């Protein structure tokens, strides 16, 4: 169970960091953001792929931290990027399961 605790802790810390970072970047009142943030999307894809597919506790924890960072952004930000990251990671996970 120790590995699950590390994952969830990494995700929570990543979410809090993402929230703090996001509020520093965007201080304005709530806006439903429509544009796609490519940098955050890359971070999200990289993070979730590491989390689901690395097979290593430390790498997965780093993945959850990065995934949580994007997912934890303030409301209105990071939703599409998280969705893209999760789709990529789940797709890769299924692909690896099928091929191995």
């Amino acid at each position, binding site marked *: *169970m*120790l590995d*699950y*605790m590390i994952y*969830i*802790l990494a*995700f*929570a810390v990543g*979410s*809090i960091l993402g*929230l703090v970072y996001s509020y520093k970047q965007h201080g304005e009142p*709530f806006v*439903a953001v429509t544009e796609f943030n490519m940098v955050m999307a890359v971070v999200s894809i990289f993070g979730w792929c590491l989390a689901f597919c690395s097979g290593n506790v430390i790498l997965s924890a780093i993945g959850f931290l990065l995934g949580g960072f994007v*997912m*934890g*952004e*303030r*409301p*209105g930000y990071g939703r599409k990027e998280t969705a893209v990251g999760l789709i990529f990671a789940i797709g890769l996970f299924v692909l690896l399961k099928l091929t191995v």
Partner: protein
Amino acid sequence: MNLMADILIQVIIAFLAGSLLLGLHRKVMARVQKRPGPPIVQHLIHSLKFFFKETAIPKTVSKVFYIGIVFILALIWIVGVIVGPVAHDSLLILFGVYAVYKIVEHNSGSSSGSPYGKLSCVRAVLSAATELPLFAAIVFVYLITGTMNIGEIITYQSAHGPLVFTIPLAALMFFMLIITKSPYSPFAITKDKVLISGFETEHFGFLRGFMNFSEAIAWYVMLWVFLTIFFGPLNAVGYLIGMIVITFITGFINAATPLLSPNHSVMTQITIGAICFFGTILMIFTGVVA
């Protein structure tokens, strides 16, 4: 692994997972009501924040009781984690944990000296109506599996399939308990907004932090027990998906349903419980349940 280390790890997981799930619950409710809602991590941040806030103790409180009850609240849900996820022990102990939780809810309100807390304390007695369907659900699980031990119930399900297919109405009774315990539930009469925060109204600072800590663990434990005794042996991913799905469902229900008045709440719970109880008995006697 060392038992103490296992308990500590499971309690941390329960707190973090429970907090994130409660955050998700608020998010789902907000989206249903077309609001942006707080970030998912908000409940966790709130809980942590309270531990560093100034703790004020009102003059009207019964001091020892007022402080002690918060630690008892945290302790009983830690016992819930030990009995459930750690030891896979008896369901009866978990029923006891829930019964004591109701008493703690009651006494937390009465010790505060606040009229809001006291009214919430009276309502906590009424809301104990949920314990009847819970007890009935546990009895049916015992009748089918022949055991109260969670580990043995898991073994039974791995051989005969999940109990939710055998006694779906008993699962529905347990699910009603989960709806009752979920935030902003139609049955949450002890935390009605006319009572401010109900039995929690007069608890500030780290005392409130402990209450939030207990709430998060309670949510995790109840979802864990429901999934374990009705959905058979599950792995970590199964639990994660199950907990997220249940949190989504309760979020939808609570966002779309107004809070019931105390008498309507109790009558609705008892009516649903009675229908499910007699329905399950009928299923057993007509041979639908093997």
